[in-house]
């Protein structure tokens, strides 16, 4: 059976990472709930992180994994600030609808 299977390659992981990234992107654009939108950005981070780790494996180099740490850092910082903002906005308008916040629109 093993001979029938394709050897696992970089492309497999990139494919999965790409799908996660694109799904996150689509979610970000379509969902109107502020919290879900931020969740979708986290999912885009997931796809990127997967690609980074796969590259690290492929190149025999841990720098890719190291970068995932920074991705995590940014994700954590973003979560802290963004969620704080979301709570504040919710207290002002009583809704999580992103379209409630378009006073700057022309």
């Amino acid at each position, binding site marked *: 059976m093993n001979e029938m299977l394709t050897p696992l390659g970089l492309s497999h992981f990139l494919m999965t990472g790409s799908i996660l990234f694109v799904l996150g*992107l*689509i979610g*970000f*654009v*379509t969902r*109107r709930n502020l919290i879900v939108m931020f969740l979708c950005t986290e999912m885009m981070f997931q796809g990127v992180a997967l690609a980074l780790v796969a590259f690290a494996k492929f190149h025999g180099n841990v720098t890719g994994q190291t970068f995932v740490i920074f991705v995590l850092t940014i994700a954590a910082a973003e979560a802290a600030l963004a969620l704080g903002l979301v709570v504040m906005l919710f207290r002002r308008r009583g809704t999580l609808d*992103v*379209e409630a*916040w*378009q006073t*700057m*629109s*022309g």
Partner: protein
Amino acid sequence: MTGRNAYPTERRTDSLVTGLEPLQYIPWIAALGAVLCGLLCIRPNLKGWAGWVCVLAIAAGFGLTVNAVLPWATGKTHFNHVGDNHIVQAEVVTASPWIQVGGENVPGENGEIIGYKGGLQVDFGYYFDGLTLTMLLVVCGIGMLIAIYAVGYMRGDPGVARFFAAMALFIFAMTSLVMADNLVLLFLGWEGVGLCSYLLIGYYYGKTTAVDAAKKAFIVNRIGDLGFLVGIFLCYRVFGTLQFADIIPAVQNALDMVATQDLSRGSLDAANKLQSVLNPGNGTSPWLFYAIPFCLMVGAFGKSAQIPLFVWLPDAMAGPTPVSALVHAATMVTAGVYLIARCMPIFVLTHNDALRDGFLSPLYVVAAVGGVTALFAATIALTNNDLKGVFAYSTVSQLGYMFLGLGAISSTAAVFHLVTHAFFKALLFLTAGSVMHALAGTLDIRKMGGMGKHMPLTKWLMLAGCVALAGAPLTAGFFSKDEILAAAMIKGTGAHWGTGEGVFYFILAILGLVTAFLTAFYTFRLWCIVFRGETRYEMGDEHHSEDDSHDDHHAHEPHEMPFWPMNAPLVVLLVGALAVGFLLAPPKKLVGDDLPQVMHSVMHESSAYIPEKYIKTPADFEADDVETNIDTITTGYIVDVSDSHHETHADPHADDAHHGDHHAHPKVLGYDAHGFMMVISSIIALLGIAMAWVFYSGSRSIPTQLAAGFGALTQTLRDKYYIDELYDKAVVQPLNIVSQILFLVDQLVIHATVMGVGLLPGQVGKHQRKTQQGKLQGYGLGMLAGVAAIALLLLYLLNR
């Protein structure tokens, strides 16, 4: 000082007029004053100073003028006279070059540039002769007095700084106008005073009448200005230059040639010769030259409110009263008189030509328009019930007198009347302003009566003005009006009696006498109604906020001017209105020859004065053997002609003090012309005054009955001959129709085309607008699509 005469001339160099150089700063001092007044607008607490800044600027100009004029007017210094032809060589001061196109410089003996010929040169150059200095004295002197009055009159008005900025700007433009040494600078001043007039008439821009009046004045003046502009173009075409210093001596030389050499050689030949010097290579058509005075005349009629362009002046009274006094009575409206006086040699040259060739002389047109306007405006003033309106029509009427004087080729008389009129009309307007001030804006004389009890000073001041305007004996208006009437009468009687020209001028003189009667009548009608009879008045609704105590103005009685600057200038004007005529032209019959005839000697030092030998009459051209009898013909009339107590002397200065001794006075019906006219006009003026006194002093039943008796006539007069209605029907409504048609064309053709072109982007934008919905996720989607597109493009490029 550079004499820029293209003709070599001999010059007297002794005792020339001094102090002319500083006069070039007068307009610029006024302009600086205007800027300062404008700057004072910025701080409300500084606005009050604007008036004094303006007064100071004008007073500086007046001081400079007096400094130059005093030694000259008293006969100590003189302008150059060239040869024995009594051609005055004016002094030209060039402040700075302005426009210079083509042409070449004329080098002097030492290689320095002394002149310029060919091409076009226009400088900020100032042309000084007797006429200029007289006008400067009037503009600055009267302007200063009125500005002082205005300081009090405008006190507390919110726009006071704007008012005085426009006043100072007006002085800038008016002095530029009278000092200009070329037609372009004159036109600059001409338009400048028009602009200031517009600004000042529309000073109360909140009032519709004021705004409409300002627009009316501006638009009617445009018609005249178009004529003036065409005249300037023609002047350049014919003479190849616009400098008075070139044109006037050349025209005077041409006059001289015509007079002394050969009558068959018309002035056009002379003009052509002149042009071959100034503007080589350009021939000229006789018609171009002939058209020049007519074009200039149209400009003068517009600015000086003569028929048919007089309609703007009565409406212009919507401006503040000091403006009416200065701009619309004393100075600006006399610019037309000044223009024709300044160009008098051209008029006379054309006059001679026209007589020779059987055309209409421009001077006849000027005289006829002046005479008819004088009578016409006086009849309207008879029934007018507006305090300032009467004076406005009176101004039109008096300007008509001046044009009559010009038309009788007596610019001395015209300018003399201009000077005296400036005094007494300024006085009348300012006292009218005092009455208006006291009654809080009431102008309808039917609502006034017996004001003398409340305003004794104003009563007497206005009486002095009225006496002068009515031409009561020995007042200023008496002498100057007499000069004009005498000039016209002399041209209509004596040797001229019975000729076509003689009848023409005789009729005009009679018109002038009738006008004098009407003037005396309507002037005293006004004064009696306002100051005599039972006391009654209605307060207007204009509050003068200069005094806090006047808050409850309605409850107050009319009062004299509380502020000294408003009365002080009036006293000076009073003295002027009564005495200036006597001072400038003392009647020899009364005082003998001891006193100098200042007005005459002053005007003889200007190009506006045309010696009699240069002026042709139709009789000159009726002689069969014209060519052989020149001397006989010319000298035959020299003796018997008007305008001056001087004849052509080799040295005209020598006999200033004892002129009149050795030449015959013109005769009318066997009497001395001036003496005759003085007696006649005295009788007429006193008659008019007496009649008005009888009619309006006590019970006013006679005029009421009279008005009822002549109902239609009275109504016509009250409605000002329906001129405004006529213009509305003849000019305004057709214009409206044309503009409606043009509006339709504009809508259907231009608007449709433009909007059709704009339709495509408009529609594209309408749909594109939806993409710019200002929503976060819409932009996110756009970014996503963009990233996808770029990735696709990169993929395509990499795999190619």
